[in-house]
């Protein structure tokens, strides 16, 4: 089993804190961060943390899963339109996937994404849960 310590560690700001890049020239937000803005070709960015709130733009229910995700079947993966206007792909959990609807409000939560075998690194990141207004 290959060890991807550097690659996973490098993604910490995006995966742990949903840090995005806001173009200083045109204010477009990019997640993940980029070196050059595709909208205006600007090259300077400020770091912004996404609020984690958004609504479900589209989703599917995975019933045949890649290695490492078997315990979660059936699980929903969707594209969330964040309140900041950008779209992000992630799992939607803590729900019955069949009851999800496009337009549902969701909020991000820190969850375990995968692990490199029983003795390898645990990989954390963001998933979304229905926003219950608790």
């Amino acid at each position, binding site marked *: 089993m290959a060890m991807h310590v550097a690659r996973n560690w490098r993604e910490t700001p995006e995966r742990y804190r949903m840090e995005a890049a806001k173009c200083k020239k045109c204010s477009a937000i990019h997640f993940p961060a980029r070196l050059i803005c595709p909208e205006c070709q600007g090259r300077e960015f400020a770091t912004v943390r996404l609020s984690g709130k958004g609504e479900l733009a589209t989703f*599917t229910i995975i019933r045949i899963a*890649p*290695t*490492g995700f078997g315990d979660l079947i059936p699980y929903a*993966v969707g594209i969330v339109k964040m309140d900041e206007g950008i779209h992000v792909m*992630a799992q939607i959990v803590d729900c019955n996937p069949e009851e999800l609807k*496009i337009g549902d409000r969701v909020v991000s939560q820190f969850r375990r994404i995968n692990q490199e075998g029983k003795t390898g690194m645990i990989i954390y*990141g963001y998933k979304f849960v229905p926003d219950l207004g608790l």
Partner: protein
Amino acid sequence: MNEVAIIGVGMTKWGELWEKSLRDISVEAALKCLDDAGVDKVDSITVGTMSGGLFNAQEHIGSLVADYLGQRFVPATRVESACASGGLAVKTAYMEVASGLSQYALAVGVEKMTDVDGGDATFALATASDYDYEAFHGITFPGLYALMAVAHMKKYGTSLEQLAQVSVKNHHNGSLNPHAQFPFTVTLNQVMTSTMVADPMRLLHCSPITDGAAAVLLVPLAVAKKMNKSYAVITGIGHASDTIALCQRKDFAKLEVVEVAAQRALKMAGKTIGDIDFAEVHDCFSIAEIMVMEALGVVESGQGGPATINGLTALDGDFPINPSGGLKSKGHPVGATGVAQVVEAVIQLRGQAGPRQIKNARTALTQNMGGSGASSIIHILEAR
């Protein structure tokens, strides 16, 4: 720039080819192509394959194929654009001939996917997505296309029956194709009750894991004219890329990459979509065919489903799509598909398609696509 013609085509049977290796199927398809052309020496070889590294622990495939094809010292290139690697191989061979660098440019598409287990095959295919921001979250390829299907169904009311009809039609065509992996028909009910893979994509909406290879030989038009056989001319090429991640596209119910590639190809060929007699398109999942036919302009946005149910794209319809059986029935050895689409186009244009022959086939369009729509390569071919 030289005009470019195709004078030879060949492909292996597609399926789970346990007894044949990566080099076996590459060479078999290439030899069939060279024999078909009546040529025994080429000036360049372009191999389109998505991932010899992950499926076969074998990169450097250009040299491997050149070596085992007995074409020593011939320059060999491997090109990759995920599932559009085959179309890219044809385009690259086209550039060899158009530029004058090669007279006889061979394009081979190949993928040997069954030498790894299902989990590893899925992993290899996942590298066509945005690995860190899509595959990382546990999405699969059926899942990515399911996301588009859900958006398309919500926006246009496309129904599950319409999606299933794509598979029914393509299996009907594939049952007439001796090279197809699944040369049998399926019913609408079979498709709609098959195992759910990623809602709403069911098993029979999805193209399979396949071993297979296909090859075409390209020459300058002047050379083709001197030979005493029919040939097809490539009159238009359109190639475009789009965002690697699905969530960064502007409209999840649209394949904009195909719209752009089609406009470029048609412009180069001096044609409109109305001039095209039939198309081989990239039906990796049933929803893909529906979205592609809309992007090509065969129908208005959102009308792909109804048109399919109404028979527009059937073998005897006004705009036949995937007479070969498409990826669904013929199979989808990822790097080979784009070349096989051109093989089918040429066979149809030559009038050699037998029971699946389209009447008066003079102008063809092939559309190959990578990933969830991050690349697409379109060729327009005309009979001469």
